[in-house]
């Protein structure tokens, strides 16, 4: 069969109905580019998050008391469910005595309001021994002029996010400035709302570390935390540093042996796994959206070619009258579908790559910490999408082409 000539005939046919062909090609472009863009975006996310996590200390376990389930009132009123275990100094020293544990860092956490020069900001305080920041985030750096004072009860460290709020052009506070912190709580005895305020001097500002607990928080001394945050020696979380990353599992097992499921243990690896699972889920969700778009494109091809077959039925009859085989007609229409698929899929690759950058830029504009996130386009992924688009196009052309090839010549010629 004269494939080259058949292709020339199909391209002529597509040219003759420019608008319709262009619209059909566009449907394929939408489907394939959406797929490329979304794939590129999620691959970019995944890369970015893995990179961020690679900056976290791999040897840290995050220990909290497990909340007893089912307690409390479904409408959010009433007391919070009681923790199953109280994280106090006794727990700290038991964990400290476990094998492979190199350090145990107890912490308090609470939401507080900061006031500086007439401006207010709500944030989270992470109350630990400031020196231990180096254990939790080994890559941590501070802006110039910062000093990390272990036992200064009135020193406060601000994360860059708090000191220089995104989207504002003046800093919230600078090193050396005095700021006021207020903690509001409900007195367990009287049930009344009370608040406790203290003044602090900003002793340092932390550069972003990639650790979300630190990057949006402020840090002050644990003694101050205990008093101001009304903790009475009950820690919110204990950070356990294993001797190295490879002992994390062993330490987790040891802690479980002591406390069973009354205690919650999170490792960076587990978090990463959860996030990656989430991304995978998100990715298959977006892929299915793109697949639907691609299927819509395929239906578009069916419609276009079917209409074309109907309109060109006389031409089909004429071709058969002058001796065209069924296979000639079949290939003629299939090659129209193939041409639509190839042009659409190829353009879709280009549009998809641009779309991936646009999508990622959209996300990054909402979260400055992800500024240097870029989409990732793997050649084999793009190849798969291209092949899928072209394959689906040809598949969509199958039915109209088959119909055309099967029409008896006399029927085709008689139709007006």
């Amino acid at each position, binding site marked *: 069969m*004269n494939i080259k000539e058949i292709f020339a005939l199909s391209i002529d046919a597509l040219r003759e109905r420019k608008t319709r062909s262009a619209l059909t090609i566009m449907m394929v472009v939408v489907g394939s580019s959406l797929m490329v863009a979304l794939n590129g975006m999620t691959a970019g996310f995944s890369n970015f998050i893995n990179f961020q996590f690679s900056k976290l200390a791999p040897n840290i376990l995050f220990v909290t008391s497990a909340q007893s389930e089912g307690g409390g009132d479904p409408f959010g009123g009433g007391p919070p469910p009681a923790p199953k275990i109280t994280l106090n100094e006794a727990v700290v020293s038991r964990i400290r005595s476990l094998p492979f544990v190199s350090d145990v860092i107890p912490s308090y956490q609470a939401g507080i309001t900061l006031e500086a020069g007439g401006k207010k900001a709500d944030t989270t305080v992470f109350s630990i021994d400031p020196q231990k920041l180096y254990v939790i985030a080994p890559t941590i750096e501070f802006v110039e002029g910062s000093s990390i004072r272990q036992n200064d009860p009135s020193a406060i460290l601000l994360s860059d996010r708090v000191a220089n709020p995104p989207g504002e052009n003046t800093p919230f506070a600078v090193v050396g400035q005095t700021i006021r912190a207020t903690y509001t709580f409900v007195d367990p005895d009287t049930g009344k709302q009370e608040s406790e305020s203290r003044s602090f001097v900003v002793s340092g500002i932390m550069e972003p570390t990639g650790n979300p607990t630190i990057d949006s928080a402020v840090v002050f001394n644990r003694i101050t935390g205990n008093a101001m945050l009304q903790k009475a020696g009950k820690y919110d979380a204990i950070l356990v540093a294993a001797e190295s990353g490879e002992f994390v599992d062993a330490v987790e097992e040891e802690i479980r042996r002591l406390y069973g499921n009354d205690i919650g243990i999170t490792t960076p690896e587990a978090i990463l796994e959860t996030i990656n699972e989430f991304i995978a889920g998100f990715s298959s969700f977006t892929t299915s959206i793109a697949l639907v778009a691609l299927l819509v494109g395929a239906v578009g091809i069916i419609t276009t070619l079917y209409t074309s077959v109907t309109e060109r039925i006389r031409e089909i009859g004429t071709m*058969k009258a*002058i001796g065209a085989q069924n296979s000639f007609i079949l290939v003629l229409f299939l090659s129209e579908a193939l041409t639509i698929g190839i042009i659409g899929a190829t353009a879709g690759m280009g549009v998809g790559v641009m779309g991936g950058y646009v999508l990622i830029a959209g996300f990054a504009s909402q979260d400055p910490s992800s500024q240097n996130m870029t989409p990732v386009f793997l050649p084999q992924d793009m190849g798969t999408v291209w092949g899928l688009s072209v394959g689906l196009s040809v598949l969509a052309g199958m039915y109209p082409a088959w119909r055309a090839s099967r029409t008896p010549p006399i029927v085709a010629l008689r139709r007006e």
Partner: protein
Amino acid sequence: MNSTEEYALQNGAIDSQTVLKVDNVTKVFESAAGRVAALRGIDLEIKRGEFVSIVGPSGSGKSTLLNIIGALDKPTSGKVYINGIDIFSLDDSEMATMRNHLIGFIFQSYNLINRTTVLKNVALPGIISEMGSEERERRAMRLLQVLGIGDKAQYKPVNLSGGQQQRVAIARSLMNDPAMILADEPTGNLDTKTGSEVFGLLRMLSSKFRRTVVMVTHNPELAEASDRAVYIRDGRVEKEVSH
């Protein structure tokens, strides 16, 4: 040797013999409106190089007969032989090959492909028979020249007059050197003058190039100018007149 040449040779071998034999062909159309017996037993023989007109009132079955001769439609009963081959014993694919090599169709409404050039239209039977592209172009061009429209090769058919379009269709029907040219009212859409020009070309094909032509017409003058006129009425051959 390509198959076109083979057919041509075969054609030569049976020179002055029967090209077409129609043997007791009937055709009944079954439709929602009822049964129509369009052909009720047609017998016909046509010799090589003959120019035969088929004449008759509207609805008498002329087109039905021509379509069956050209293997576009199947008879309800009876046989059709072209160059001695029982054409309805062939399968679909062989029948297509036969149409491509042995038959040249000319339609009343030209049936050209308007999106492509005149030259490509003429070459189409050669594309289907997989003629080499050089030979194809050369042959199509020569046919256009013979038919007096060599200068229109790169035009689109829509930009040609009716007479010129019908010449393109004639050129296309000759592309693969068929044993027989079948024309269903080829002058039906043309004015008298253009019509007689086109008829003149068909006549010349027969007299000068020894082509077999079977033409359906309503025009008694044209019928009289053929070698033989076959009169059809109600699906039967009423009379045959040789001139």
